[in-house]
Protein backbone atom coordinates (compact mmCIF):
# COMPACT_ATOMS: atom_id res chain seq x y z
CA UNK A 1 0.00 0.00 0.00
CA UNK A 2 1.25 3.49 -0.90
CA UNK A 3 0.64 6.44 1.38
CA UNK A 4 0.18 10.17 0.92
CA UNK A 5 0.13 12.69 3.77
CA UNK A 6 -1.39 16.16 3.52
CA UNK A 7 -0.06 18.85 5.83
CA UNK A 8 0.34 22.62 5.96
CA UNK A 9 1.65 23.94 9.25
CA UNK A 10 -0.94 26.72 9.26
CA UNK A 11 -4.52 25.77 9.97
CA UNK A 12 -7.49 26.56 7.78
CA UNK A 13 -5.65 26.66 4.47
CA UNK A 14 -7.79 23.85 3.06
CA UNK A 15 -6.03 20.62 4.02
CA UNK A 16 -9.14 18.61 4.78
CA UNK A 17 -11.17 19.98 1.86
CA UNK A 18 -8.34 19.03 -0.50
CA UNK A 19 -7.75 15.66 1.19
CA UNK A 20 -11.44 14.77 0.94
CA UNK A 21 -11.84 15.64 -2.72
CA UNK A 22 -8.53 14.09 -3.68
CA UNK A 23 -9.67 10.89 -1.97
CA UNK A 24 -12.82 10.89 -4.08
CA UNK A 25 -10.74 11.39 -7.25
CA UNK A 26 -8.38 8.54 -6.36
CA UNK A 27 -11.25 6.25 -5.39
CA UNK A 28 -12.51 6.18 -9.00
CA UNK A 29 -9.77 3.81 -10.08
CA UNK A 30 -8.04 2.65 -6.91
CA UNK A 31 -8.95 0.96 -3.67
CA UNK A 32 -8.22 3.61 -1.09
CA UNK A 33 -8.70 4.42 2.57
CA UNK A 34 -8.36 7.70 4.50
CA UNK A 35 -6.92 8.37 7.94
CA UNK A 36 -7.96 11.58 9.67
CA UNK A 37 -4.88 12.21 11.78
CA UNK A 38 -6.05 15.56 13.13
CA UNK A 39 -7.07 13.83 16.32
CA UNK A 40 -7.46 17.11 18.24
CA UNK A 41 -10.18 18.25 15.91
CA UNK A 42 -11.09 15.36 13.68
CA UNK A 43 -13.47 16.50 11.00
CA UNK A 44 -12.53 14.92 7.67
CA UNK A 45 -15.55 12.61 7.88
CA UNK A 46 -17.83 15.63 8.38
CA UNK A 47 -17.04 16.66 4.80
CA UNK A 48 -18.88 13.46 3.84
CA UNK A 49 -21.83 14.15 6.19
CA UNK A 50 -20.55 11.46 8.53
CA UNK A 51 -20.86 12.48 12.17
CA UNK A 52 -19.74 9.93 14.74
CA UNK A 53 -23.27 8.56 15.24
CA UNK A 54 -23.05 7.27 11.65
CA UNK A 55 -19.72 5.51 12.16
CA UNK A 56 -19.41 1.75 11.66
CA UNK A 57 -17.30 1.64 14.80
CA UNK A 58 -16.51 4.24 17.48
CA UNK A 59 -15.02 3.07 20.75
CA UNK A 60 -12.78 4.21 23.58
CA UNK A 61 -9.00 3.98 23.16
CA UNK A 62 -6.23 4.07 25.71
CA UNK A 63 -2.73 5.07 24.61
CA UNK A 64 -1.77 6.83 27.78
CA UNK A 65 -1.02 6.15 31.38
CA UNK A 66 -1.22 8.36 34.41
CA UNK A 67 0.46 8.03 37.79
CA UNK A 68 -1.65 7.16 40.84
CA UNK A 69 -0.40 7.66 44.42
CA UNK A 70 -1.38 5.13 47.08
CA UNK A 71 -1.80 7.39 50.09
CA UNK A 72 -1.46 4.53 52.59
CA UNK A 73 1.89 3.45 51.25
CA UNK A 74 3.26 6.97 50.63
CA UNK A 75 5.98 7.99 53.12
CA UNK A 76 5.85 11.68 52.11
CA UNK A 77 9.50 11.83 51.12
CA UNK A 78 8.83 14.10 48.15
CA UNK A 79 11.22 12.29 45.81
CA UNK A 80 8.52 11.91 43.18
CA UNK A 81 7.88 15.64 43.22
CA UNK A 82 11.55 16.44 42.68
CA UNK A 83 11.83 13.83 39.94
CA UNK A 84 8.86 14.86 37.82
CA UNK A 85 10.27 16.76 34.85
CA UNK A 86 6.79 18.00 33.93
CA UNK A 87 5.97 19.53 37.34
CA UNK A 88 2.85 17.40 37.43
CA UNK A 89 3.27 16.45 41.10
CA UNK A 90 2.85 18.80 44.04
CA UNK A 91 2.32 18.38 47.78
CA UNK A 92 -1.24 19.07 48.77
CA UNK A 93 -2.10 18.49 52.41
CA UNK A 94 1.17 16.57 52.80
CA UNK A 95 0.32 14.08 50.02
CA UNK A 96 1.75 14.23 46.49
CA UNK A 97 -1.10 15.08 44.14
CA UNK A 98 -0.96 14.46 40.40
CA UNK A 99 -2.04 17.19 38.00
CA UNK A 100 -3.65 15.02 35.35
CA UNK A 101 -3.27 17.69 32.65
CA UNK A 102 0.50 17.74 33.22
CA UNK A 103 1.25 14.01 33.75
CA UNK A 104 2.93 12.46 30.70
CA UNK A 105 2.72 8.94 32.12
CA UNK A 106 6.51 8.59 31.83
CA UNK A 107 6.80 6.52 35.00
CA UNK A 108 9.83 8.29 36.48
CA UNK A 109 7.93 8.85 39.76
CA UNK A 110 7.00 5.17 39.94
CA UNK A 111 10.65 4.20 39.50
CA UNK A 112 12.00 6.65 42.10
CA UNK A 113 9.39 5.97 44.82
CA UNK A 114 11.11 4.06 47.66
CA UNK A 115 7.78 2.88 49.11
CA UNK A 116 6.24 1.45 45.92
CA UNK A 117 3.37 3.85 46.45
CA UNK A 118 3.04 4.97 42.84
CA UNK A 119 1.68 2.95 39.98
CA UNK A 120 0.74 3.75 36.41
CA UNK A 121 -2.81 3.27 35.32
CA UNK A 122 -4.16 3.11 31.75
CA UNK A 123 -6.53 5.93 30.93
CA UNK A 124 -8.97 6.24 28.08
CA UNK A 125 -7.75 9.33 26.31
CA UNK A 126 -9.52 9.08 22.95
CA UNK A 127 -12.20 7.52 20.80
CA UNK A 128 -11.26 5.67 17.65
CA UNK A 129 -13.23 4.12 14.82
CA UNK A 130 -14.17 4.41 11.19
CA UNK A 131 -16.95 5.39 8.82
CA UNK A 132 -17.86 4.29 5.33
CA UNK A 133 -18.40 7.01 2.72
CA UNK A 134 -20.90 6.88 -0.15
CA UNK A 135 -17.92 6.60 -2.48
CA UNK A 136 -17.08 3.14 -1.20
CA UNK A 137 -13.96 3.99 0.77
CA UNK A 138 -13.65 4.26 4.53
CA UNK A 139 -12.23 6.95 6.80
CA UNK A 140 -10.43 5.95 9.98
CA UNK A 141 -10.48 8.64 12.60
CA UNK A 142 -10.04 9.33 16.28
CA UNK A 143 -10.86 12.11 18.68
CA UNK A 144 -8.64 12.93 21.61
CA UNK A 145 -10.81 13.52 24.66
CA UNK A 146 -10.63 17.14 25.81
CA UNK A 147 -7.86 17.72 28.33
CA UNK A 148 -5.96 14.56 27.47
CA UNK A 149 -2.46 14.21 26.11
CA UNK A 150 -0.86 11.62 23.89
CA UNK A 151 -2.05 12.82 20.48
CA UNK A 152 1.08 11.44 18.78
CA UNK A 153 0.29 7.91 19.90
CA UNK A 154 -3.37 8.30 18.97
CA UNK A 155 -2.25 9.34 15.46
CA UNK A 156 -0.25 6.13 15.14
CA UNK A 157 -3.35 4.17 16.17
CA UNK A 158 -5.48 5.89 13.50
CA UNK A 159 -2.92 4.99 10.83
CA UNK A 160 -2.97 1.40 12.07
CA UNK A 161 -6.76 1.42 12.02
CA UNK A 162 -6.73 2.63 8.40
CA UNK A 163 -4.49 -0.26 7.38
CA UNK A 164 -6.61 -2.70 9.34
CA UNK A 165 -10.01 -1.76 7.87
CA UNK A 166 -8.80 -1.82 4.25
CA UNK A 167 -6.23 -4.58 4.17
CA UNK A 168 -5.80 -4.73 0.41
CA UNK A 169 -6.10 -1.01 -0.33
CA UNK A 170 -3.71 0.47 -2.90
CA UNK A 171 -3.45 3.83 -1.19
CA UNK A 172 -3.94 5.48 2.20
CA UNK A 173 -4.50 9.25 2.33
CA UNK A 174 -3.51 10.85 5.63
CA UNK A 175 -4.88 14.23 6.71
CA UNK A 176 -2.53 15.75 9.30
CA UNK A 177 -3.27 18.36 11.98
CA UNK A 178 -2.23 22.00 11.91
CA UNK A 179 1.13 22.77 13.50
CA UNK A 180 4.41 20.91 13.36
CA UNK A 181 4.52 19.27 16.80
CA UNK A 182 4.21 15.69 17.95
CA UNK A 183 0.91 14.72 16.23
CA UNK A 184 2.14 16.08 12.88
CA UNK A 185 5.49 14.32 13.15
CA UNK A 186 3.60 11.07 13.85
CA UNK A 187 1.44 11.68 10.75
CA UNK A 188 4.34 12.43 8.40
CA UNK A 189 6.79 9.64 9.21
CA UNK A 190 6.90 6.70 6.82
CA UNK A 191 4.85 8.10 3.91
CA UNK A 192 5.58 7.76 0.19
CA UNK A 193 4.48 11.28 -0.71
CA UNK A 194 3.65 14.53 1.07
CA UNK A 195 1.38 17.31 -0.19
CA UNK A 196 2.00 20.63 1.50
CA UNK A 197 -0.99 22.95 1.21
CA UNK A 198 -0.37 26.65 1.59
CA UNK A 199 -1.95 30.03 0.89
CA UNK A 200 -0.34 33.24 -0.38
CA UNK A 201 0.01 35.02 2.96
CA UNK A 202 3.09 35.68 5.09
CA UNK A 203 1.75 33.21 7.69
CA UNK A 204 0.96 30.55 5.10
CA UNK A 205 4.43 30.83 3.57
CA UNK A 206 6.25 30.84 6.91
CA UNK A 207 4.34 27.78 8.13
CA UNK A 208 4.77 25.99 4.80
CA UNK A 209 8.54 26.19 5.20
CA UNK A 210 8.24 24.56 8.61
CA UNK A 211 6.08 21.77 7.25
CA UNK A 212 8.68 21.32 4.52
CA UNK A 213 11.44 20.96 7.15
CA UNK A 214 9.54 18.04 8.71
CA UNK A 215 8.96 16.36 5.35
CA UNK A 216 12.62 16.83 4.36
CA UNK A 217 13.73 15.43 7.69
CA UNK A 218 12.04 12.16 6.81
CA UNK A 219 13.27 12.32 3.21
CA UNK A 220 9.80 12.09 1.68
CA UNK A 221 8.99 13.14 -1.91
CA UNK A 222 6.79 16.22 -1.85
CA UNK A 223 4.88 18.84 -3.75
CA UNK A 224 3.01 22.06 -2.97
CA UNK A 225 -0.58 23.09 -3.60
CA UNK A 226 -1.19 26.85 -3.35
CA UNK A 227 -4.80 27.27 -2.30
CA UNK A 228 -6.62 30.61 -2.75
CA UNK A 229 -3.63 31.63 -4.91
CA UNK A 230 -5.40 34.67 -6.40
CA UNK A 231 -5.86 36.34 -3.01
CA UNK A 232 -2.40 37.74 -3.55
CA UNK A 233 -0.84 36.83 -6.86
CA UNK A 234 2.47 38.52 -6.04
CA UNK A 235 2.83 36.44 -2.91
CA UNK A 236 1.90 33.30 -4.83
CA UNK A 237 4.73 34.07 -7.23
CA UNK A 238 7.05 34.43 -4.26
CA UNK A 239 6.07 30.94 -3.09
CA UNK A 240 6.51 29.61 -6.63
CA UNK A 241 9.98 31.03 -6.97
CA UNK A 242 10.91 29.62 -3.56
CA UNK A 243 9.65 26.22 -4.75
CA UNK A 244 11.60 26.46 -7.99
CA UNK A 245 14.80 27.40 -6.18
CA UNK A 246 14.39 24.44 -3.85
CA UNK A 247 13.42 22.07 -6.61
CA UNK A 248 9.91 21.39 -5.33
CA UNK A 249 7.03 21.05 -7.76
CA UNK A 250 3.89 23.14 -7.50
CA UNK A 251 1.24 20.47 -8.00
CA UNK A 252 -1.49 23.04 -8.59
CA UNK A 253 -2.82 26.46 -7.75
CA UNK A 254 -6.48 26.68 -6.72
CA UNK A 255 -8.32 30.04 -6.84
CA UNK A 256 -10.19 31.51 -3.89
CA UNK A 257 -13.77 30.34 -4.13
CA UNK A 258 -16.62 30.72 -1.66
CA UNK A 259 -17.97 27.40 -3.00
CA UNK A 260 -15.45 25.73 -0.67
CA UNK A 261 -17.29 27.13 2.35
CA UNK A 262 -20.68 26.35 0.83
CA UNK A 263 -19.67 22.75 0.08
CA UNK A 264 -18.33 22.43 3.63
CA UNK A 265 -21.57 23.81 5.06
CA UNK A 266 -23.57 21.31 3.06
CA UNK A 267 -21.06 18.60 3.95
CA UNK A 268 -20.37 17.54 0.36
CA UNK A 269 -16.80 17.24 -0.99
CA UNK A 270 -16.10 20.19 -3.30
CA UNK A 271 -15.33 17.79 -6.17
CA UNK A 272 -19.00 16.77 -6.18
CA UNK A 273 -20.43 20.14 -5.22
CA UNK A 274 -19.07 22.01 -8.21
CA UNK A 275 -18.42 20.23 -11.51
CA UNK A 276 -15.38 22.43 -12.30
CA UNK A 277 -13.44 20.73 -9.51
CA UNK A 278 -13.65 17.26 -11.05
CA UNK A 279 -11.09 18.30 -13.64
CA UNK A 280 -8.94 20.15 -11.10
CA UNK A 281 -8.70 17.19 -8.73
CA UNK A 282 -8.19 14.67 -11.53
CA UNK A 283 -5.24 16.77 -12.68
CA UNK A 284 -3.85 16.88 -9.17
CA UNK A 285 -4.27 13.12 -8.88
CA UNK A 286 -2.46 12.45 -12.14
CA UNK A 287 0.40 14.77 -11.29
CA UNK A 288 0.92 13.10 -7.94
CA UNK A 289 0.85 9.64 -9.50
CA UNK A 290 3.59 10.65 -11.90
CA UNK A 291 5.63 12.28 -9.13
CA UNK A 292 5.32 9.23 -6.89
CA UNK A 293 6.87 6.85 -9.40
CA UNK A 294 9.64 9.23 -10.49
Amino acid at each position, binding site marked *: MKSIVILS*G*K*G*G*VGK*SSIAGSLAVAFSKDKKIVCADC*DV*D*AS*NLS*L*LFSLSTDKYVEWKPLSTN*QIAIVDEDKCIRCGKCIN*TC*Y*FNALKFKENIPKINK*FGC*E*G*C*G*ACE*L*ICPANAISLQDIENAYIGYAKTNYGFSIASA*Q*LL*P*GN*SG*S*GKVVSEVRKKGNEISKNADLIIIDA*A*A*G*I*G*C*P*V*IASVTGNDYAIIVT*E*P*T*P*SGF*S*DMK*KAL*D*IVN*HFGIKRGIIINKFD*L*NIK*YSEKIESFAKKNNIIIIDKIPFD*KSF*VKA*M*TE*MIPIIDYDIRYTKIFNNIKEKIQIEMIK
Partner: protein
Amino acid sequence: MVEIIAITGGKGGTGKSTVATALAYELSKDNKVLLVDADVDCPNDHLILNIKRNHLKIIEQRIPDFDLDKCTKGGACGKVCKTNAIVSIQGKNPIFMQNQCNGCGACEIICPSRAISWASKDIGKIYSGKKDNLDFLSGELKTNQPISEFIVNHLNEEIEKNKEKYDYIIIDTAAGTHCPVIAALENADKVLAVTEPTPLGAHDLEIILQLLDKLKKKGGIILNRSDIGVKKIIESLASKYKTKIIFEIPYSKEIVDSYSKGNPITITDITFVVNK
Protein backbone atom coordinates in the same frame (compact mmCIF):
# COMPACT_ATOMS: atom_id res chain seq x y z
CA MET B 1 -5.14 44.27 38.30
CA VAL B 2 -4.06 42.55 35.09
CA GLU B 3 -6.60 40.60 33.08
CA ILE B 4 -5.27 37.66 31.07
CA ILE B 5 -7.35 36.80 28.01
CA ALA B 6 -6.60 33.74 25.88
CA ILE B 7 -7.76 33.46 22.28
CA THR B 8 -8.32 29.90 21.10
CA GLY B 9 -10.78 28.02 18.90
CA GLY B 10 -10.01 24.39 18.06
CA LYS B 11 -10.15 24.55 14.28
CA GLY B 12 -7.23 26.06 12.40
CA GLY B 13 -7.66 29.15 10.27
CA THR B 14 -10.76 30.50 12.00
CA GLY B 15 -9.08 33.82 12.74
CA LYS B 16 -7.46 33.38 16.16
CA SER B 17 -4.35 35.36 15.29
CA THR B 18 -6.33 38.01 13.42
CA VAL B 19 -8.50 38.58 16.49
CA ALA B 20 -5.62 38.39 18.98
CA THR B 21 -3.46 40.90 17.12
CA ALA B 22 -6.31 43.30 16.37
CA LEU B 23 -7.55 43.18 19.97
CA ALA B 24 -4.12 43.59 21.53
CA TYR B 25 -3.12 46.44 19.23
CA GLU B 26 -6.37 48.31 19.75
CA LEU B 27 -6.22 47.90 23.54
CA SER B 28 -2.61 49.07 23.61
CA LYS B 29 -3.66 52.52 22.46
CA ASP B 30 -5.02 53.29 25.94
CA ASN B 31 -3.58 50.53 28.13
CA LYS B 32 -0.38 48.67 28.94
CA VAL B 33 -0.76 45.49 26.92
CA LEU B 34 1.36 42.39 26.29
CA LEU B 35 0.56 40.12 23.37
CA VAL B 36 1.90 36.57 23.69
CA ASP B 37 2.04 34.36 20.61
CA ALA B 38 1.74 30.89 22.15
CA ASP B 39 1.15 29.12 18.84
CA VAL B 40 4.74 27.95 19.12
CA ASP B 41 4.46 25.42 16.27
CA CYS B 42 3.61 28.15 13.77
CA PRO B 43 3.86 31.59 15.33
CA ASN B 44 2.52 34.24 12.95
CA ASP B 45 1.50 37.25 15.05
CA HIS B 46 4.78 39.04 14.32
CA LEU B 47 4.10 38.58 10.60
CA ILE B 48 0.62 40.03 10.93
CA LEU B 49 1.76 43.02 12.98
CA ASN B 50 5.02 43.37 11.10
CA ILE B 51 7.09 43.20 14.29
CA LYS B 52 10.81 42.57 14.18
CA ARG B 53 11.44 39.95 16.83
CA ASN B 54 14.49 40.16 19.09
CA HIS B 55 15.98 37.01 20.46
CA LEU B 56 15.26 36.77 24.21
CA LYS B 57 16.37 33.27 25.11
CA ILE B 58 17.04 29.77 23.85
CA ILE B 59 14.89 27.03 25.34
CA GLU B 60 16.67 23.83 26.14
CA GLN B 61 15.44 20.44 27.17
CA ARG B 62 17.59 17.89 28.98
CA ILE B 63 18.50 14.67 27.22
CA PRO B 64 20.43 11.66 28.53
CA ASP B 65 24.13 11.38 27.86
CA PHE B 66 25.25 7.74 27.82
CA ASP B 67 28.67 6.82 29.23
CA LEU B 68 29.28 3.71 27.14
CA ASP B 69 32.28 2.68 29.26
CA LYS B 70 30.00 2.36 32.28
CA CYS B 71 27.03 0.91 30.38
CA THR B 72 26.51 -2.78 31.17
CA LYS B 73 24.21 -3.24 28.14
CA GLY B 74 21.38 -4.77 30.15
CA GLY B 75 18.70 -2.96 28.15
CA ALA B 76 16.81 -1.51 31.13
CA CYS B 77 16.80 2.08 29.83
CA GLY B 78 15.05 1.12 26.60
CA LYS B 79 12.40 -0.81 28.49
CA VAL B 80 11.34 2.16 30.64
CA CYS B 81 11.43 4.74 27.84
CA LYS B 82 7.78 5.42 26.99
CA THR B 83 8.52 7.66 23.99
CA ASN B 84 10.66 5.03 22.25
CA ALA B 85 13.61 7.42 22.19
CA ILE B 86 15.93 4.67 23.44
CA VAL B 87 16.23 1.33 21.70
CA SER B 88 18.32 -1.03 23.76
CA ILE B 89 18.93 -4.67 23.10
CA GLN B 90 20.62 -6.73 25.75
CA GLY B 91 24.31 -7.04 24.98
CA LYS B 92 24.35 -4.00 22.67
CA ASN B 93 24.92 -0.30 23.20
CA PRO B 94 21.68 1.66 23.49
CA ILE B 95 20.62 3.63 20.41
CA PHE B 96 19.27 7.07 21.26
CA MET B 97 16.97 9.16 19.05
CA GLN B 98 17.12 12.58 20.62
CA ASN B 99 14.19 14.03 18.69
CA GLN B 100 11.80 11.67 20.45
CA CYS B 101 13.11 12.31 23.97
CA ASN B 102 10.96 14.35 26.36
CA GLY B 103 13.60 14.41 29.11
CA CYS B 104 11.47 12.51 31.64
CA GLY B 105 14.45 10.89 33.35
CA ALA B 106 13.11 7.36 33.74
CA CYS B 107 16.23 5.97 32.00
CA GLU B 108 18.57 7.65 34.46
CA ILE B 109 16.67 6.28 37.44
CA ILE B 110 16.58 2.70 36.16
CA CYS B 111 20.19 2.49 34.93
CA PRO B 112 21.95 0.05 37.29
CA SER B 113 25.46 1.26 36.41
CA ARG B 114 24.87 5.01 36.63
CA ALA B 115 25.94 5.35 33.03
CA ILE B 116 23.47 8.15 32.28
CA SER B 117 24.06 11.84 32.99
CA TRP B 118 22.41 14.92 31.51
CA ALA B 119 23.14 16.89 28.40
CA SER B 120 20.74 19.24 26.65
CA LYS B 121 19.28 20.04 23.28
CA ASP B 122 17.84 23.27 21.88
CA ILE B 123 14.14 22.89 21.30
CA GLY B 124 13.17 26.44 20.51
CA LYS B 125 13.41 30.14 21.22
CA ILE B 126 11.56 32.95 22.89
CA TYR B 127 11.54 36.36 21.23
CA SER B 128 10.39 39.77 22.35
CA GLY B 129 9.29 42.74 20.33
CA LYS B 130 7.26 45.92 20.24
CA LYS B 131 4.66 47.55 18.03
CA ASP B 132 4.14 51.16 19.06
CA ASN B 133 2.81 50.89 22.60
CA LEU B 134 2.24 47.11 22.47
CA ASP B 135 4.74 44.72 24.07
CA PHE B 136 5.14 41.37 22.41
CA LEU B 137 6.43 37.89 23.27
CA SER B 138 6.63 35.01 20.86
CA GLY B 139 7.71 31.41 21.33
CA GLU B 140 8.92 29.21 18.52
CA LEU B 141 9.45 25.46 18.51
CA LYS B 142 12.37 24.18 16.47
CA THR B 143 11.17 21.93 13.65
CA ASN B 144 11.28 18.19 14.33
CA GLN B 145 11.07 18.71 18.10
CA PRO B 146 7.88 17.16 19.42
CA ILE B 147 7.17 18.83 22.75
CA SER B 148 5.54 22.18 21.97
CA GLU B 149 4.27 22.70 25.51
CA PHE B 150 7.78 23.11 26.93
CA ILE B 151 8.05 26.36 24.97
CA VAL B 152 4.58 27.42 26.13
CA ASN B 153 5.60 26.72 29.74
CA HIS B 154 8.55 29.08 29.32
CA LEU B 155 6.22 31.74 27.93
CA ASN B 156 4.04 31.21 31.00
CA GLU B 157 7.07 31.84 33.21
CA GLU B 158 7.75 35.10 31.40
CA ILE B 159 4.10 36.10 31.83
CA GLU B 160 4.23 35.29 35.52
CA LYS B 161 7.40 37.38 35.98
CA ASN B 162 6.07 40.43 34.18
CA LYS B 163 2.32 40.42 34.61
CA GLU B 164 2.19 43.23 37.17
CA LYS B 165 3.36 45.66 34.51
CA TYR B 166 0.25 45.23 32.38
CA ASP B 167 -3.44 46.01 32.27
CA TYR B 168 -4.09 43.26 29.73
CA ILE B 169 -2.22 40.20 28.55
CA ILE B 170 -3.57 38.62 25.35
CA ILE B 171 -2.47 35.02 24.69
CA ASP B 172 -2.87 33.63 21.16
CA THR B 173 -2.99 29.80 21.27
CA ALA B 174 -2.37 27.12 18.65
CA ALA B 175 -5.10 25.25 16.82
CA GLY B 176 -6.29 22.01 18.36
CA THR B 177 -6.93 21.04 21.96
CA HIS B 178 -3.80 19.12 22.94
CA CYS B 179 -1.00 19.84 25.38
CA PRO B 180 0.34 23.19 24.08
CA VAL B 181 -3.18 24.63 23.97
CA ILE B 182 -3.97 23.45 27.50
CA ALA B 183 -0.68 24.95 28.72
CA ALA B 184 -1.50 28.27 27.03
CA LEU B 185 -4.93 28.41 28.67
CA GLU B 186 -3.58 27.63 32.12
CA ASN B 187 -3.18 31.22 33.37
CA ALA B 188 -6.07 32.81 31.53
CA ASP B 189 -8.79 34.67 33.44
CA LYS B 190 -10.98 34.57 30.37
CA VAL B 191 -10.94 32.45 27.22
CA LEU B 192 -12.43 33.58 23.93
CA ALA B 193 -13.04 30.90 21.32
CA VAL B 194 -12.91 32.10 17.72
CA THR B 195 -14.92 29.98 15.31
CA GLU B 196 -16.70 30.06 11.95
CA PRO B 197 -20.29 29.02 11.21
CA THR B 198 -19.49 25.76 9.41
CA PRO B 199 -20.06 22.18 10.62
CA LEU B 200 -16.29 21.80 10.96
CA GLY B 201 -15.97 24.99 12.97
CA ALA B 202 -18.84 23.84 15.20
CA HIS B 203 -17.37 20.39 15.71
CA ASP B 204 -14.03 21.77 16.85
CA LEU B 205 -15.63 24.52 18.92
CA GLU B 206 -17.57 21.92 20.88
CA ILE B 207 -14.35 20.17 21.86
CA ILE B 208 -12.86 23.47 23.02
CA LEU B 209 -16.00 24.25 25.06
CA GLN B 210 -15.76 20.82 26.70
CA LEU B 211 -12.11 21.51 27.47
CA LEU B 212 -12.98 24.90 29.01
CA ASP B 213 -15.57 23.20 31.22
CA LYS B 214 -12.94 20.73 32.38
CA LEU B 215 -10.42 23.48 33.06
CA LYS B 216 -13.15 25.55 34.75
CA LYS B 217 -12.47 28.54 32.50
CA LYS B 218 -15.11 31.02 31.51
CA GLY B 219 -15.32 33.10 28.40
CA GLY B 220 -17.31 33.43 25.22
CA ILE B 221 -17.46 32.82 21.50
CA ILE B 222 -16.29 35.12 18.73
CA LEU B 223 -17.98 34.24 15.45
CA ASN B 224 -15.77 35.07 12.49
CA ARG B 225 -17.03 35.28 8.90
CA SER B 226 -20.41 35.24 10.61
CA ASP B 227 -22.33 35.77 7.38
CA ILE B 228 -20.91 32.81 5.45
CA GLY B 229 -22.37 29.54 6.63
CA VAL B 230 -25.00 28.54 9.13
CA LYS B 231 -25.02 30.60 12.29
CA LYS B 232 -27.66 28.44 13.97
CA ILE B 233 -25.28 25.57 14.62
CA ILE B 234 -23.00 27.84 16.65
CA GLU B 235 -25.91 29.41 18.52
CA SER B 236 -27.21 26.03 19.62
CA LEU B 237 -23.73 25.05 20.83
CA ALA B 238 -23.50 28.30 22.78
CA SER B 239 -26.73 27.58 24.60
CA LYS B 240 -25.79 23.91 25.17
CA TYR B 241 -22.59 24.99 26.94
CA LYS B 242 -24.17 27.99 28.66
CA THR B 243 -21.98 30.50 26.92
CA LYS B 244 -22.60 33.31 24.46
CA ILE B 245 -21.58 34.57 21.08
CA ILE B 246 -20.20 37.86 22.33
CA PHE B 247 -18.91 39.27 19.06
CA GLU B 248 -19.45 38.73 15.36
CA ILE B 249 -17.10 39.61 12.54
CA PRO B 250 -18.71 39.55 9.09
CA TYR B 251 -16.68 38.33 6.13
CA SER B 252 -14.60 41.21 4.85
CA LYS B 253 -12.52 41.42 1.71
CA GLU B 254 -10.41 44.11 3.41
CA ILE B 255 -9.44 41.77 6.25
CA VAL B 256 -8.50 39.05 3.76
CA ASP B 257 -6.50 41.53 1.68
CA SER B 258 -4.65 42.99 4.67
CA TYR B 259 -3.89 39.49 5.88
CA SER B 260 -2.48 38.32 2.57
CA LYS B 261 -0.38 41.48 2.23
CA GLY B 262 1.00 41.22 5.73
CA ASN B 263 -0.66 44.43 6.92
CA PRO B 264 -2.02 44.77 10.47
CA ILE B 265 -5.76 44.26 10.70
CA THR B 266 -8.32 46.56 12.23
CA ILE B 267 -11.60 45.10 13.44
CA THR B 268 -14.16 47.75 14.35
CA ASP B 269 -15.16 47.75 18.03
CA ILE B 270 -13.12 44.64 18.84
CA THR B 271 -12.26 45.96 22.33
CA PHE B 272 -15.92 45.39 23.15
CA VAL B 273 -15.05 41.74 23.92
CA VAL B 274 -12.99 42.78 26.94
CA ASN B 275 -15.91 44.00 28.98
CA LYS B 276 -18.23 41.19 28.05
